């Protein structure tokens, strides 16, 4: 029950680092949408608050590798070369669908069983998000 020392020591250490010169003041990527592409074909995109397209996933099958390009409010590609930026592709139901990062901005999806799940495509900047996508609904169907 008594968890005070470990937590306090760790948070105290964080504070010491911050006092010593690290500030939380920094820039954020100005991301307003994205496109997910397989080769040259756009599969899914978010523009503003609207999701267009869908993922086709079969149970027991891994999708082809897909590439994400993030865009700013004007539709221009946002460069995320800084190693502090990381792609996160998350499944809301890993019993139905799992995700796998295959590169800095590439990923695959794998159907586990038939059913529905949501996929979120997010950008982590250090230890916090700079962008969280709208949930993208995915129906995993039986393999043909």
């Amino acid at each position, binding site marked *: *029950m*008594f*968890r*005070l020392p470990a*937590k*306090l020591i*760790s*948070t*105290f250490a*964080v*504070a010491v680092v*911050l*006092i010593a010169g690290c*500030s*939380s*003041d*920094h820039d*954020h990527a100005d*991301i*307003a*949408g994205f496109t997910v592409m397989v080769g040259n074909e756009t599969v899914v995109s*978010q523009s*503003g*608050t609207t999701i267009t397209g869908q993922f086709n996933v079969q149970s027991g099958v891994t999708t082809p590798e897909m590439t994400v390009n993030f865009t700013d*409010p004007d539709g221009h590609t946002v460069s995320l070369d800084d190693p502090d930026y990381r792609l*996160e592709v*998350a499944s809301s139901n890993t019993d139905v669908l799992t995700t796998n990062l295959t590169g800095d901005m590439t990923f695959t999806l794998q159907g586990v069983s038939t059913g529905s799940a949501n996929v979120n495509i997010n950008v*982590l900047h*250090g*230890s*916090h*998000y*700079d*962008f*969280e*996508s*709208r*949930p993208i609904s995915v129906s995993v169907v039986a393999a043909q």
Partner: protein
Amino acid sequence: MASLYAITLFLFGLVGTPEVQATIIGYSDGENQQTNRGVIRGKVTDRDSGEPVSYTSIVIVETNRAATAHDNGEYILPNVAPGVYTLRTHRVGYESFSQSVTVTPNDTITVNFRVRSSIFRSRAIQVTADRDNGENIIRAEHRVDGRELRQQLGRTLAETLQNEPGMAQSTMGPAPARPVLRGLSGDRLVLLEDGRTTGDVSTSAPDHAVTIDPINSQYIEILRGPSALIYTSNAVAGVVNVVRGQIPTELPEHFHGTASVQGESVNQGLSAGGAVYSSRENLAFKADLGLRTSADITTPEGTLDNTSIQNFHGGVGLSRIDDRGLLGFSANAYLSSYGIPGNFIGSHPEGVNINLQRYQFDTRYERYPDSDWIKRAQYNYTFSFYFHEELEYSPQRERFDIVGYQSNLITNTVTGRYYHGRAGFVDQGIFGFYGQHSYNSPGGFTFTPSTNDLALATFAYQDFGIGDWAFQTGLRFDFYALFPVEETDTAFGLRTNRTFFNVSGGTKASYSLTRNLVTSFYLMRTVRIPVVEELFSEGPHLPAYSYEVGDPTLNAEIGHGAEWTLRYASESIGIQNSWYFYSFSNYLYPRNTGEESVRRPLPIYQYTGASARIYGTEILAEWQFLDGFMLNGTASYVLGDLTTDNEPLPFIPPLTGKIDLQYAYRVYTIGTSMRLASKQDRLGEFEEPTDGYQVYDAFVQAHFTHGSHMHTFSLTLENITNETYRMHLSRVKSIMPEPGRNVKLLYRMYF
């Protein structure tokens, strides 16, 4: 004419006449011939039994010196400079008592006190007569101390105050609870510790905890009306000041202190605190320490996950005190780690973990000038560093490591106050200045810029009488500037420098209708400067299920308030009834824009200003109907409207009340109480209705003296029937009700 203070002391007989409660005998004594100084000595006895009352603290208010009565009730204050002083007694289980004395050179004056057990401790009386905070001018409207404080001592300041008239608490789990007074909270209800701002970000979001742990508080006072202008221009609801006394202002005669342990069953909570006081010649020393740990809280419907709390606070203080003033320092730290539950709309499914730390350094310098007019000059400087981080759960890594929000806040505050005596028609007063610089650097998933804030103010507060009327009046000028580190043009406006200049003020008038009946009313103009979140913020705000953005063009929130109060107090009955009306010409609140954020799927709320009003009434009644028996009750009702849109304000508490019956016999007090609230179906935007409830509590308290130690026990049984109930101001009420049956035991030793 005499001041209100003197009038009410006479009216209600709290101080009483010297022949009843204090005797003063003066005679020459060779003891101080060489120093030209005098001695105050005497004995403290129980008014009813005549027995000595040991462990009574006798304080010279004007010089902050104190002595403690020994086992035989006798005390001595040697080496006192000639002059007129106020002696004040403090003792657990007894009413505080004040007596004016005159010390002449080379004399010993004997002041014997006959103190009265505090079973009938009328709060209606306190409001007018028992209200000085050691500074003798600033009068609190209400004070929680002694037995009442021990009985109500909760996990948070808000929980400790929740049963006071007009008070409620907004919660988001047990840790981030914040007091709500008359429906006003956040920046509209200023929280102070030892008279200075807390230096945290608790006002900016409901999940941010207040960095005050009540376990080591000496007392808690609520200031309202013109006296609150000494601390802030934004005092429409009032000011809550928690007095912990970190910088020693008294020279204790010997080493003494307190030690407290409190346990409770509903969350397997354990807290401990202690404070020690000592002195060596002119140096006074104080150290205190507090520790609190609790597991997830239990409700009648199950355990509310991620609601554990771990707190630590501690501080040391050192003062050099003599008859001409004091120079004091203190350093303190407050560290806390707590959870916010998840699974309510907009929240993170697993909840959020919050870590915060605050470090403060204080300096106080006081002088008692050789002046007929300026009685005391007081200067304070406070440096504060605050760190806050909110960690969201990462399903991929299965741990809390995503920083949702972070803040680093550095604050430097300087105040100067001058306490003066009679000047023209003014009986007494205070004037002074205030300056504060703060730098706030937010981080995490927020686009709010780092900012520098500068606040400068000057104020005056005066007591005077005209005919049979007694007046207090306050006036304050504030300059406020806010500088974003970087000027940026955003979709929500240009974030650039903003400056504000405003005047706030108020007057309170009191009139004694009869010997037992006093009426008072006040008028106030208050100003609340928009804070950085309201001007420049941009980011998700999960507790409010919103993506909040500021409006850089916002103007100040101007409030006008009026309050009327009627108080009746006799030896066995006390009644106080207040009616109030507040009108806001630019009430700042987040309004739904109808759009969604592209950065996170949340609706965008932008801060805006609108006309609003808040009005209501409170009543407090106490009746000692038999010797030792007391019945008391409180009721509060408040309504709030956005008059621009003709719709109710959100987060307004329903009709609430409390009735309790107490019986005191010698050192024992037992009691039972019923807390009740009506349903709330007068709802603001996106609010859900809340059912009414009745909850029963009981308590037993005792205090014993053994040698040089005094022991107090307070056993409280809360929610006896394990009732399932929800509070309207709980943001997690949709997933879990309030705590279930709880056994709470507090042991406090004075040594």
